């Protein structure tokens, strides 16, 4: 067949290669932020990175695996509580707990997935919420970690991260940046892999994917478990930044799920760029409208509904449909061999 020899399948494009160079430059600038940004800016950037990570992970679940969860706060809180527990009772260095928390989060999500994968669609969504409530109520029963009122990290553990205050802030900043990049890289590399192709096939047509021999349950299960592990690791860093944890803050549906969903919907669901764009928009809105208090959330809800009804593919989806631009190329295109 001539088509097979004359054409090749490519994923990257000139734009994506240019973007990767710009991204590396930007990354170098961001890594150096402790030397050029103020203390408040560093904190804000750290928070942005952690939201980028959460948004990418939720998008990976909902936008690619079709698992719409409103209970990811279960893993955020779980990660936070694990960090506090391991640092306070096992004496592990807070930064060193992160890999363990990834593993623990993935492990605990296995029985959770087996149970709630029995629910479909929207009922799956509420099922994840019930799980998050179970986690929250259980955390409130752990009296060693302050029960319902929560606890703070003891000062000597905080000191063990770095001797000076600025040293600790820099460490928290770099950890947040590292985890955001790790999450984006994991999602990107997974989507470019064979498994990622299977996942996108399931998203586009479940029946057809099944007919091609893809094990739908196992693919979704894998995505759910990995996402849970990474979300737990992000959660641990969130509460390492806050230095205080309580069940209501750790398992807050507004902070860790509602905002994240709005970010992904506004930015563009089902794209890697969308959650990043969405997070930037979200923080711009927050920094300008935060004084409005609860009216700000109201506006956010209205914007999300309007985007969902009028432009369901979000901001990035709009850019992509106009220009075909993909900064993180995951689409496979067939092109003639001699050209790119």
């Amino acid at each position: 067949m001539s088509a097979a020899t004359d054409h090749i399948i490519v994923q990257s494009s000139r734009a994506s290669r240019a973007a990767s160079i710009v991204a590396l430059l930007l990354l170098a600038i961001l890594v150096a932020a402790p030397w050029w940004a103020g203390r408040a800016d560093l904190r804000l950037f750290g928070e942005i990175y952690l939201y980028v990570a959460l948004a990418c992970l939720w998008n990976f679940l909902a936008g690619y695996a079709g698992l719409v969860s409103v209970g990811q706060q279960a893993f955020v809180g779980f990660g936070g509580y694990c960090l506090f527990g391991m640092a306070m009772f096992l004496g592990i260095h807070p930064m060193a707990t992160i890999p363990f928390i990834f593993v623990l989060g993935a492990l605990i999500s296995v029985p959770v997935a087996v149970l709630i994968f029995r629910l479909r669609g929207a009922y799956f969504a509420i099922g994840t919420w019930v799980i998050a409530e179970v986690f929250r109520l259980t955390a409130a029963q752990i009296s060693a970690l302050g029960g319902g009122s929560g606890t703070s990290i003891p000062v000597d553990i905080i000191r063990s991260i770095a001797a000076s205050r600025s040293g600790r802030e820099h460490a928290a900043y770099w950890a947040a940046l590292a985890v955001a990049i790790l999450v984006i890289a994991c999602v990107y590399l997974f989507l470019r892999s064979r498994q990622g192709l299977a996942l996108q096939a399931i998203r586009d047509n479940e029946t057809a994917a099944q007919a091609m021999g893809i094990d739908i349950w196992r693919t979704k299960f894998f995505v759910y478990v990995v996402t849970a592990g990474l979300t737990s690791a992000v959660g641990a860093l969130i509460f390492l930044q806050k230095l205080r944890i309580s069940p209501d803050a750790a398992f807050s549906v507004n902070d860790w799920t509602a905002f994240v969903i709005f970010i992904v919907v506004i930015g563009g669901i089902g794209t890697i760029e969308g959650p990043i764009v969405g997070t930037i928009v979200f923080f711009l809105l927050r920094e300008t409208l935060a004084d409005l208090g609860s009216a700000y959330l109201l506006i956010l809800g209205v914007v999300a509904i309007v985007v969902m009804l009028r432009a369901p593919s979000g901001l990035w989806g709009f850019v992509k449909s106009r220009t075909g631009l993909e900064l993180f190329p995951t689409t496979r295109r067939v092109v003639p061999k001699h050209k790119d």
Partner: protein
Amino acid sequence: MDWVNAVLQGVLLGGLYALFAAGLSLIFGVMRLVNIAHGDFIVLAAFLGLVVTTTLGMHPLAALAIVVPFMALLGYVLQRCILNQTLGNDILPPLLVTFGLSVIIQNGLLEIFTANPQKLSAGALETASIPLGGGLNAGVLPILTFAAAVAIIAFLQWIFYRTSLGRAFRAVSDNQDIAQLMGLNKSHIFGLAMALSMAVIAIAGIFLAVRTSFDPSVGPARLIFGFEAVIIGGLGNLWGTLIGGIILGVSQNIGAQINPGWQLLAGHIAFLIVLAVRPRGLFPRVDG
């Protein structure tokens, strides 16, 4: 005797949960829509009841005459203007739009009524009880709530299986396109289903508001209780939903009897056990 009492009060509490669940079950049965803002609409109805009772000086149960039609109308308009646009093969739009509505209602109520807990006062009805002998007492209000749940489920059951509107509901539920070909306007039918669901929500909201104090943030928990009752009872089965509500109420009260901190946890665990053992619920009728 404490245990018998816990079970009895749990059964009566189950009536309230069945009220939370009936509207949810109804719209899922007709259009496969899960309304994430369901609990927040219950709280909205409670606040409407508060406005009506305080401005007109009415008894909360009399306020139903105003709150129920208002919520039903709101439901119809909401369905025709917004929710119908989200229905389709993709589950994401209805989920996200109702999730957005939930956030809007919560924060809208917070802006207007602040976070202070409120309560509807129903005078003597709040504390009246009937002695059942052996030291057991059943509150008049919980009995009334339970009776209302039974009556509403019987009424919905009658509409579904004995009226032309119910036939239309079942037709669009089975196959939207063919129902449309047979001359049914599915947008209108969906609007009526949402109106009916919201009427039930209004009743649930008033009973909730008389029973306990409420504030703008308590909606999501009501959604979860209603959802658990639906899943325990089995999708699409209204009488099953009542039994699901009772199982949830009894589990919570038994949990609270063992340790006050375990009340909600016990309810969730009962739900998870049913999900593990009978994933389609105890008395399933339709497929999810």
